[in-house]
């Protein structure tokens, strides 16, 4: 019993990503399960501990807001990968391409001709009344017509086996640095296992990102200067900003390093000003330019939006994309796909009740004990009620919040997220996971084969956010098809 293997693994009543039943690994996971089962006693745990040490040494940490002592924390990493076979991946990839294409068309439309509103497919006030709608962006023409260059879409697998889209993150999605570092750690820790299984590489993400960003530079600039703009070292994702800049070989700048002069953006070098052509900004719209957005922002660059409007600098993502992140707007993405692309969504949404709509609100208020309620504009698992796990008092509080501001809330059924075996003490237990793949929209749409698998490390927990006890896993998209064993599962994905 003391050896760390899968002999006593229990899938419970959940969909398990690696096991079809307690004793039967899925075909795609067979090689990994075999590998770990034949390790000498104690070896798996020893390697997991080596990884924990490496994380500290590498300084791969994130910052927790409101935590006074030692604000740097390691983002825990569990070595059992999530495994996605080629067939399922091509399904996911096609769904993500379709979705980002429609979302980009939507943003372009609502800050332009607003056809979708005119046709009444989405109620106008839901869009123009949203907190994240930027009136100042109306009429903007982003370079190459692309608004959302970098997207991280949250997917979950429900107990019915289907993959659903839970959230679109079109502002400054984070986490891709962990995808790359996790893979590095896995290759270091389990080199034989990874090569035996055959996993598609993720390491070329920075090159694709750089290429995507260069694509946005003004036409007449032969050798554009690309920078990453960070709010600074106290931002929770600072490590990632620094990592991406380093991997792309570009400067990491803060607002105070940039200045607008004569219609251009410059950075302050030891040698005076140097022109900047493309900014991968990891600062929210609100803080980007105090002249255009929040005047009290100390992080941004006064006059930046004006330079952008003149086409003298490119911003990725474009300002205003947050509107498509709004959880109420999310409910309409399937409609967008039908409207702009004339096709049915490949990846479905999770059923969503829009509290602004009266009969849906009634249903939500009557079923708070069964639903998950989310604020339209919050991220990171904040402003959220998980009905079945909440106290009556908490539910009452949310009922009041919903009645006071129905536009700001949506509700979804409590999902039974799938699980992946995760080291707990000396043995493996199933823990719930989601999956965030990353999509780049440059010359064409590119989907990173893999993504961040976030895992809720607390027993029974469904919250995978790093700020709330979540960890991560490597995601292995298989490079080749395996024997047709699970091809019978085909119905699951369609």
């Amino acid at each position, binding site marked *: 019993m003391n050896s760390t293997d899968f002999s006593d693994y229990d899938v419970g009543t959940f969909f398990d990503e690696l096991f079809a039943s307690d004793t039967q690994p899925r075909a795609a996971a067979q090689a990994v399960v075999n590998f770990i089962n034949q390790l000498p006693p104690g070896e798996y745990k020893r390697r997991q501990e080596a990884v924990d040490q490496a994380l500290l040494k590498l300084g791969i940490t994130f910052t927790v807001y409101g935590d006074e002592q030692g604000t740097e924390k390691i983002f825990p990493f569990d070595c059992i990968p999530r495994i996605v076979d080629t067939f399922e991946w091509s399904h996911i990839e096609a769904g993500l391409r379709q979705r980002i294409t429609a979302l980009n068309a939507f943003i372009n439309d609502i800050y332009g001709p607003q056809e979708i509103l005119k046709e009444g497919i989405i109620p106008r006030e839901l869009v123009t009344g949203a907190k994240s709608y930027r009136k100042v962006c109306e009429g903007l023409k982003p370079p190459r017509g692309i608004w959302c260059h970098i997207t991280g879409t949250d997917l979950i697998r429900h107990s019915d086996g289907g993959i659903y889209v839970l959230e679109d993150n079109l502002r400054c999605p984070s986490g891709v640095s962990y995808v790359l570092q996790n893979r590095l750690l896995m290759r270091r820790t389990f080199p034989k296992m990874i090569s035996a299984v055959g996993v598609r590489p993720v390491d070329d993400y920075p090159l694709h990102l750089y290429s995507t960003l260069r694509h946005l530079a003004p036409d007449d600039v032969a050798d554009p200067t690309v920078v990453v703009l960070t709010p600074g070292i106290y931002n929770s994702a600072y490590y990632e900003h620094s990592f991406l800049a380093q991997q792309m070989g570009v400067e990491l700048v803060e607002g105070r390093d940039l200045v607008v002069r004569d219609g251009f953006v410059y950075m*302050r070098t030891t040698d005076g000003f140097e022109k900047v052509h493309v900014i991968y900004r990891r600062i929210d719209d609100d803080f980007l330019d105090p002249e255009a957005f929040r005047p009290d922002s100390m992080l941004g660059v006064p006059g930046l939006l004006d330079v952008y409007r003149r086409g003298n600098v490119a911003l990725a993502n474009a300002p205003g994309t947050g509107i498509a992140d709004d959880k109420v707007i999310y409910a309409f993405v399937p409609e967008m796909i039908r409207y702009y692309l004339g096709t049915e969504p490949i990846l479905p949404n999770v059923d969503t009740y829009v509290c602004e709509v009266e009969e849906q609100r009634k249903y939500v208020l009557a079923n708070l004990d069964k639903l998950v309620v989310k604020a339209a504009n919050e991220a990171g698992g904040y402003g959220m009620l998980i009905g079945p796990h909440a106290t009556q008092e908490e539910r009452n509080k949310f009922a009041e919040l919903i009645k006071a501001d129905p536009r700001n809330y949506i509700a979804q059924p409590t999902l039974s997220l799938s699980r992946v075996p995760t080291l707990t003490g000396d043995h493996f237990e199933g823990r719930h996971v989601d999956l965030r793949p990353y999509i780049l929209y440059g010359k064409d749409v590119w989907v990173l084969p893999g993504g961040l698998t976030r895992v809720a490390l607390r027993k029974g927990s469904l919250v995978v956010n790093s700020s709330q006890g979540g960890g991560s896993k490597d995601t292995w998209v298989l490079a080749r098809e395996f024997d047709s064993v699970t091809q019978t599962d085909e119905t699951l994905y369609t």
Partner: protein
Amino acid sequence: MIPETRLAQPEPFEFDSESQAGFSPHSFTMLSRVAESIYWMARYVERAENIARFIDVNITFTLDAGDNDFGQWEPLIQITGDEEYYAEYYKKHDHLSVIQFLAFDPKYVNSLISSLNMARENARTVREAIPSEVWEQLNELYHFVRGTEASGTTLEGLAEFFQKVKQHSHLYSGLLDATMSRGDGWHFANMGRMIERADKTSRLLDVKYYTLLPKVSDVNTTIDDLQWSALLRSVSGFEMYRKRFHAITVQRVAEFLVRDPVFPRSCRFCLGQALESLRAIIENGQARETNSAIEKLTALKVHLDELDMRNTIDCGMHEFIDDFQLRLNDVGAAIFETYFDRAQLDLIPLVSEQSQ
């Protein structure tokens, strides 16, 4: 004998036709904020290493002297110039108190741990600009020191600890030199490191000179005193000194530490290195009308080049070192004004777009 072989040149890596653009004109210059952080990262690591050196040599001496823990540790407090702080928080002058103060006191801003913390914080803001190996080594050094406590550790244990700190620091320094391109980033780091080292060597000499030398008439007699050799050992210079001068006299030790042209921790050598880096930075950049940093650094280097040590000792070693440290601070201030001060940098006129 097998002749040297020349390997076939690999094809340059290309991922996109866009990347074939020529060598960027901005490959060498860097963000002013980043340059400043790299400069301070290097200074703080060097500061930390020198604290470890001060303590290490004193521990060795204390161990040699047996139980006579007399007056050996107090001068280390004087080196810092922070006697007031010490008097406020510490009662005794025994080795444990002094080591706690110098190495492990997190509230004392110039302690080893505080210096490492500052080095790491500066490095953390410029991780993208330094090689990962350098960051990892610095991070490891920081965690190594943080995980150690003075109390409950024997002197022998502490000696081993401070030697390890030195080794970690050398590893960091070696990685910096072996893995970082000689662009402005490295040159700012090197300048910071060398200026800090020159300062620390002069401080060390100052304190030892003050405590060990009652009469100026002794300066030319052979003393081969344990303490003077300990001083040389603390800058890893004992063997190099022997090769140059053999017997120890005070004037020669001072000459060696201040003016030796080739010993890598002498003040003069360090300034020469800093000057070379500053020249490289200037060469990489655009012409400025004036540059007070190079003017002041050159003048200070020339001052050491032309210094007569006998004369200096006659006029007062302490006065000389005081003046040297003040002038070194001036150099630091000039570097700040020239390269890091936003208000000054914003006065540099815009250059028209390079033809590309």
